[in-house]
């Protein structure tokens, strides 16, 4: 049973980090799974489930004083097994890069900003094995073109900040694969990328698995990604392995209810949240006529105005939720910011019935002032507009806290101690304190875990009903748009290429770009 040989085996491994003082606090407990040579294994779980930590433990990159408390990790090196967690740093350094390679989630920060791409890839050849200088350059260039990078010669001399996210991830892969490692661990390789680029990167991983016979361990919170690459998968939650098995059986009839909930949230099979299609009650509260937004750019001194949103026109009716979807850079956020009044360089007309519409931003950590308490933040809008006395303001805030699903006790707490979901709730609460009917939502849930996304969407619908709000909902995630929006605009390079009722657009997209977007959706 040649095929039966396990390349990597974890036998009830538990990893721990030092708590204040000496005590070790276990993060994962009794984790056991294996991956066969040439196979692609997926590890699924929400952030904090211990999936990355287990993999980092294999190559001894835990950092922060983390250690494998018990169990061991066996790796097939040629004929015999070596125990990775007992090896010294010196021995591990020989394994890392040569036998086991890794790629990470954030292409923006995972490459050394002050070294050229060429040199960073070439370093792998320097570290393991010795081949002469010209030979190295040739192999690097070959590898760069193999990962699909256009014009490797030019890329060789470029710095990371001069490449796009997708190109940087390809460079990472080139770096990892140049020595043809036995095992490639990919930690959320596509999470930070756009949907279309995501598909290409996954194709690349599959190509290497086929051509080089590399074993792949793919860590992701996105079940669609796992299903498209891996044959088997392990589901982890709270530091333990909840379930593992073939992708087919696992996804069709998941045994454990955690896996079920995970699948439901991910594939949007859950209840469609929007109520009966909102009929356009009365007049449009927002009407936009060939509205353009410009960015000022300083190209070596000369100021040039770049048109980002090109003459868009649309109307929004009260109580309606309209989605705007498109890839990053298509101008959807710029449009939202311009409508909110944050970017003065506009042309055309955009009259909004209510003055200073509020906005909810994508990054929960950035949108709340870390130095203030939740209570202070929420009373700020009232303070600025002199609404009511101190007691009235305090009462209004506590009432709103209840409404967004946070209790009164959050009044005195500061943003640092809240989770992403809770912060987004506070952001929403702040936005509707002034009871403005029109609310712009710029990717409000993209940075949240699937299960938390679910709760926020439900909250948004509830609030819309209660306060008769009109939403302009911006997202790059088609599933979310599908579940919450009445109408949708598809934006591509600053223009609205298609618009219409959500079900109608999803069922038969007209514009080729919309088809591509829907195609990429799993």
């Amino acid at each position, binding site marked *: 049973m040649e095929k039966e040989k396990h390349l990597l085996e974890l036998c009830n491994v538990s990893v721990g980090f030092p708590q204040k003082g000496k005590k070790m606090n276990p993060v994962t407990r009794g984790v056991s799974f294996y991956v066969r040579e040439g196979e692609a294994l997926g590890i699924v779980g929400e952030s904090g489930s211990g999936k990355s930590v287990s993999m980092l433990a294999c190559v001894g990159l835990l950092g922060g004083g983390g250690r494998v408390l018990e169990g061991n990790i066996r790796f097939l090196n040629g004929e015999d097994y070596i125990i990775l967690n007992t090896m010294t740093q010196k021995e591990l*350094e020989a394994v*890392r890069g040569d036998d086991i390679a890794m790629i990470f989630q954030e292409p923006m920060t*995972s490459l*050394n900003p002050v070294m050229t791409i060429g040199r960073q890839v070439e370093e792998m050849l320097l*570290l393991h094995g010795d081949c002469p200088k010209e030979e190295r350059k040739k192999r690097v260039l070959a590898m760069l073109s193999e990962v699909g990078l256009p014009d490797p010669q030019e890329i060789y001399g470029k710095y990371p900040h001069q490449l796009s996210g997708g190109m940087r991830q390809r460079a990472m892969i080139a*770096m990892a694969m140049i020595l043809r490692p036995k095992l490639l661990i990919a930690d959320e390789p596509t999470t930070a990328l756009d949907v279309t680029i995501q598909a290409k990167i996954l194709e690349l991983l599959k190509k290497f698995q086929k051509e080089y016979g590399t074993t792949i361990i793919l860590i992701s919170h996105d079940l669609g990604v796992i299903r498209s690459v891996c044959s088997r998968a392990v589901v982890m939650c709270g530091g333990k392995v909840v379930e593992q098995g073939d992708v087919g059986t696992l996804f069709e009839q998941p045994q454990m209810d955690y896996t079920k909930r995970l699948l439901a949230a991910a594939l949007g099979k859950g209840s469609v949240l929007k109520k009966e299609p909102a009929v356009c009650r009365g007049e449009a509260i927002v009407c936009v006529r060939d509205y353009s937004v410009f960015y000022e750019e300083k190209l070596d001194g000369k100021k040039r105005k770049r048109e980002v949103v090109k003459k868009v026109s649309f109307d929004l009716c009260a109580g309606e939720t309209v989605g705007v979807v498109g890839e990053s850079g298509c101008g959807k956020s710029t449009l939202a910011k311009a409508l909110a009044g944050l970017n003065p360089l506009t042309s055309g007309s955009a009259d909004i019935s209510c003055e200073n519409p509020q906005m909810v931003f994508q990054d929960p950590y950035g949108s709340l002032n870390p130095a203030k308490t939740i209570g202070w933040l929420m009373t700020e809008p009232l303070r600025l507009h002199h609404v009511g006395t101190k007691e009235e303001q305090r009462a209004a805030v506590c009432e709103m806290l209840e409404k967004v699903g946070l209790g009164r006790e959050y009044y005195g707490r500061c943003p640092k101690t809240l989770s992403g979901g809770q912060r987004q709730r506070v952001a929403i609460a702040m936005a509707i304190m002034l009871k403005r009917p029109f609310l712009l939502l710029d990717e409000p849930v993209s940075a949240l875990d699937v299960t938390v996304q679910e709760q926020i969407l439900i909250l948004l619908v509830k609030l819309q009903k209660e306060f008769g709000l009109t939403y302009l909902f911006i997202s790059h995630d088609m599933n979310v748009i599908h579940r919450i929006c009445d109408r949708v605009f598809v934006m591509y390079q600053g223009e609205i290429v298609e618009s219409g009722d959500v079900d109608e657009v999803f069922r038969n997209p007209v514009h080729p770009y919309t088809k591509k977007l829907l195609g990429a959706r799993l």
Partner: protein
Amino acid sequence: MRYYIKKVISLIMVLFLIMLLTFIAFQVIPGDSALSRLGVDAEPEAVEALRESLGLNKSLPERFFSFLSGAVRGDFGNSYQYGKPVGELLSARLSVTVWLAVLSIFMIIAVSVPLGLVCSRKEGGVADRIITMVTQTLMAVPAFFLGIVITLIFGLVLEWFAPGAYIAPGEDFGGFLRYMIFPAVAIAVPKIAMTVKFLKTSVLRELKLDYVRTARSKGNSERAVLWRHVLKNALIPVITFMGMVIADVLAGSIVVEKVFNLPGIGRLLITAISNRDYPVVEAGVVYIGSVVLIVNFIVDLLYQKVDPRVRIK
């Protein structure tokens, strides 16, 4: 290119501001250079005559522009006290201060970079704690006191150098360097302490970033990670800090020059101020101003060279 032109313009503007400020300062402070030139028993008429010949009675704007036109041509007029052209006086002092700066900056870099790295590699370890303790103590010692202690220990007790026996570079260059090492140490030590601390925090910050994890995953040893990857990134903020240090040293650290009896720019400026020798002070202030600004300019260029993200196309 426009960026550089803008920089040069701002440099000139600041220089102009400094000169103006110095001129006004001299109007405000008491003490008449003619009187301090002729001394206690000079007759009032004689003082008046000298004021006339030195052009001190002309109106402020008139004097300022005549000075400005001179300065642009590099001629700062004659020193009231020494009667020599100011340029000659300054250039003679320049070599002392420049050499002092070069030596101390070399020392700062040569000592603080390795120390900083050792500290950050063994963070929390014994070496780190000792180095931190010593550097923090040295940072706490006033410069002139350090100078005296060095003179005492190395000059009088260990007799490695003859205190106060400044040897001109022209005469015996070896002797000159041997003597200059000690004032350079007096200047360098507190700056080394600060640089080590600065570098350590910078390295620790870099070590937390993702690209370090990638470097380790490629099989780099801890040392390789530090020297090949982290150091260059960690040095970027240190460069701006070094810019301030270099400017400070080149401006002539008056106190150390006084303790080690070095005829540097700092001491010349002090004596010129206390003798109300306007031309020398003006030239000195212009020298220090341009030094600080040029160093900042070089720091900017260096910054771009090291950090490609900032590079101006």
